């Protein structure tokens, strides 16, 4: 007991600060506060504009409550059909492109040069947001659904090929070796040892991508790549908010329906 030399039975403890030097610590805090104040004051708040915006917002919400499905029904119908077509075509094309690229991007089954090329394509597709890609394709092919289909198919590669490649890299290597040992070439090895191990997930992911593509088809339409998004954009330009409301309700319903169906299909696959 003689070892206890501390005069007080209480010992103080505090969590050590992140920045040890007190000058630096308070400097950082004050600097951040000053910056925030300057930043807020630099945003010019125009109260008249906010009032007008609120009024427009109010009209929009009112229009939503009384959606007009009738007066532009033909345009809506064409837009919806176009969106669905875009979704189906782009998903199929995207899956067909994603399978070879996904195989090529799996390190365990291809030589390095092919791996790098396929990874490059995937990275390119993932780097740009759909809207940016859509603008590029609209410039290339003009307004309309072709640009939308190309956009969605390209974006599908970034999603599907990447996940497929990751699945393939995690397969059980033993059957791969066993099939190779029978004297089978690359393609036969893939169809017997790789595809059976990943096919169920590939189908699940494709169905999932279908409902992402439907949602995206509405968005890329806004920059002129066809589909219901283009119809929506036109109604906004004309201040037809009641029609826009109807279109939004249709989009929401469609997305919800495909989501339900795709969730069901994916559940079955497991």
């Amino acid at each position, binding site marked *: 007991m003689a070892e206890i030399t501390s005069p007080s039975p209480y010992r103080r403890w505090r969590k050590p600060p992140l920045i040890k030097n007190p000058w630096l610590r308070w400097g950082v805090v004050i600097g951040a506060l000053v910056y925030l104040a300057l930043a807020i004051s630099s945003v010019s708040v125009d109260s008249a504009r906010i009032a007008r915006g609120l009024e427009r917002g109010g009209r929009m919400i009112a229009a939503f409550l009384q959606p007009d499905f009738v007066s532009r029904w033909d345009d809506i119908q064409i837009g919806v059909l176009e969106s669905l077509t875009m979704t189906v075509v782009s998903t199929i094309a995207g899956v067909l492109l994603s399978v070879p690229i996904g195989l090529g991007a799996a390190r365990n089954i291809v030589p390095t040069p092919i791996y790098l090329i396929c990874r490059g394509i995937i990275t390119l597709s993932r780097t740009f947001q759909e809207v940016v890609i859509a603008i590029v394709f609209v410039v290339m092919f003009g307004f309309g659904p072709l640009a939308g289909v190309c956009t969605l198919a390209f974006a599908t590669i970034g999603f599907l090929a990447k996940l497929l490649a990751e699945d393939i890299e995690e397969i059980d290597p033993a059957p791969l070796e066993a*099939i*190779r040992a029978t*004297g089978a070439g690359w393609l036969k090895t893939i169809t017997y040892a790789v595809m059976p191990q990943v096919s169920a997930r590939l189908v699940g992911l494709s169905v999932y991508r279908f409902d992402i593509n439907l949602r995206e088809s509405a968005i890329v339409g806004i920059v002129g790549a066809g589909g219901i998004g283009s119809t929506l954009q036109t109604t906004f330009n004309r201040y037809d908010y009641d029609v826009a409301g109807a279109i939004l309700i249709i989009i929401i319903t469609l997305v919800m329906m495909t989501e339900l169906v795709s969730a069901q299909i994916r559940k079955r696959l497991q």
Partner: protein
Amino acid sequence: MLRIEQLVKRYPTGDTALRGVSLSVAEGQVVALIGPSGAGKSTLIRCVNRLVEPTSGKIWLRDTEITALHPRQLRRIRRRIGMIFQEYALVERLSVMENVLSGRLGYVNFWQSWFRRFPQTDIDQAFTLLDRVGLSDFIDKRADELSGGQRQRVGIARALIQSPDLLLVDEPTASLDPKTSRQIMRLITELARERGLAVIINIHDVPLAQMFVQRIVGLRAGEIVYDGPPDGLTPDRLSEIYGAEDWGASQATTAEQEPSLTAQE
């Protein structure tokens, strides 16, 4: 029929798995390769069909130098070399029949394999083999529905449908219970005798090897330290292969167990 000369394998990690192994196997001869784990048994048989690329040394199958072949020729020669694995290495999601027929992939063209349109002779042979290994009731079951022993029987059928001249067998019984292990060893050695195949079996269960095989090769740290008949494996020899241990005691217990096991079968 198989001749291995001065085989060396150094893995990129720096492990030297084989340090100049030379070994010949005659037509129809069954050889058991024993040795502690890490001795290089798997590496040795994987070098034979070049699933693992040897660092140096030569391997001949009859008068073909396997180590000199281009990929295309290598695939052709692999058809003549069947392989059986410890963890069976079946494609779990494919049926028993598909797994067996996959042994013919080296012979059929791509579309035949894609649509599962194998020649009638292959299908007849698959049925015959499945009867022989006792799986005729499981033909359309998926491989992952089978027990370990049944899976290994599928593995055996897949290797044999290749009509190989040489069988490479890597620890076929390491994942099986003692009784099933014996049945599988018996099946492999019987089929090899029926078909006149040369076989190399990696196995770490010495009594099991002694029971079924006439020639035993002992590998230790990548070098052959024993090559002779099963009864030449004295405790001294075993110590040389596996390191010091009271071998007399372990052999005595195995000898005691034997009658009861045989009675069960």
